[in-house]
């Protein structure tokens, strides 16, 4: 029951590979870019870092592994994503889902199981430390002695 307006995502030829309406593929698809399937695919689809969209004319009998999967057509097979599965109105999915997030619009048909996997926490790298030159170490100001004016001050302090 998503409240987002129903829109058919248009394939972007610049950033997504496309399987057109009249195309039928039997076998394995591996891609390192987004994939839009509006034809028939039988086998497996894998695009672990990217988004796979099954268009309204798409008929897929395949397991799908991707970062994100959007279904507007028909899929028979298991779907595994690291991010999100989005099943739109009038879509049909028969298979098991493993994902972090799921969205199912009213009117979608789903039959299978949903297993939610919490996303793995990202490893944060510490910010890079400033590089300190060995030849010119940063002088550390020493305590100022009131009894001996000038004595104990580092060069840097004097130059300031």
């Amino acid at each position, binding site marked *: 029951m*998503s*409240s987002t307006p129903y829109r058919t995502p248009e394939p972007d030829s610049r950033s997504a590979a496309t399987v057109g309406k009249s195309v039928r593929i039997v076998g394995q698809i591996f891609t390192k870019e987004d994939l839009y399937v509006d034809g028939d695919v039988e086998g497996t689809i894998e695009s672990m870092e990217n988004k796979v969209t099954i268009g309204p004319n798409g008929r897929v009998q395949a397991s799908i592994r991707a970062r994100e999967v959007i279904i507007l057509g028909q899929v028979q097979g298991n779907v595994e994503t690291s991010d999100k599965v989005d099943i739109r109105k009038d879509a049909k999915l028969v298979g098991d889902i493993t994902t972090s997030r*799921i969205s*199912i*619009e*009213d009117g979608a*048909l789903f039959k299978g199981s949903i297993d*939610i996997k919490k996303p793995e926490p990202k490893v944060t790298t510490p910010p890079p430390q400033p590089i300190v030159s060995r030849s010119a170490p940063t002088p550390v100001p020493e305590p100022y002695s009131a009894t001996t004016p000038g004595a104990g001050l580092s060069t840097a302090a004097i130059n300031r």
Partner: protein
Amino acid sequence: MLTEKLLSIFRKDGDPFSNNAQLASLRAAVPTRSVTPAGPGRKPGRKDALTRQSRGLEQFFFNIRDVVGLSVLDCAGASQDNIDFLINLGHKVYAQDLVQNLDEAFGPDPEAQTNPSRIDYFLKQNFAYPPETLDGVLLWDSLQFMSPALLNATVDRLAEVMRPKAYLLAFFTATERVRDVPSNSFRIADNKTIVLTERGIRPAGQVFNNRNLEKLFGKFESVKFFLTRENLREVIVRR
């Protein structure tokens, strides 16, 4: 009196509704009819949603409280609300639309529901789970549209795929005659509130009285009934 009698028909300990105060709150629960705002998935002509409390649902979640990682089958179809609710409780969700699958398997002819090969096909399509897989089953009103032959076969199959001590929730019309009854979609609002949206009228498979239901679930450990103001029996069954 009838309500009290029905409420008292159970065999399980730990009933949360056994004291008078809770019984009074049950009687005071008045269903509210609210209009669901039109959304992208809302079909034209659908009736308004009815929000009401469900003692059966409350009992169901009471029984599986404090446990995570259960396998729960929701037969209301693909419902974002139900899936979100069950996932937030930490459970694995199995989903299917059993009423729609009835249509696909048997078509509009009620006689088809007596065909053994079709019944077998239906069970394989909808309950092909390994034995003792499910910890909870939300059947909603789907069972009441099955013919006696199909109903008995389905309940027998459910007994196989449910784990011991697992629970199922089912709704049956409490009318004394077999007639057409509304079919609803069910959305879980919270652990004791459901939102019903009518999705058509269907012939009930048979008359469902207490005796019939106890006989139907004879293989199960316990059966508990709640009678609602909508003349509906909410039934909690323990495997």
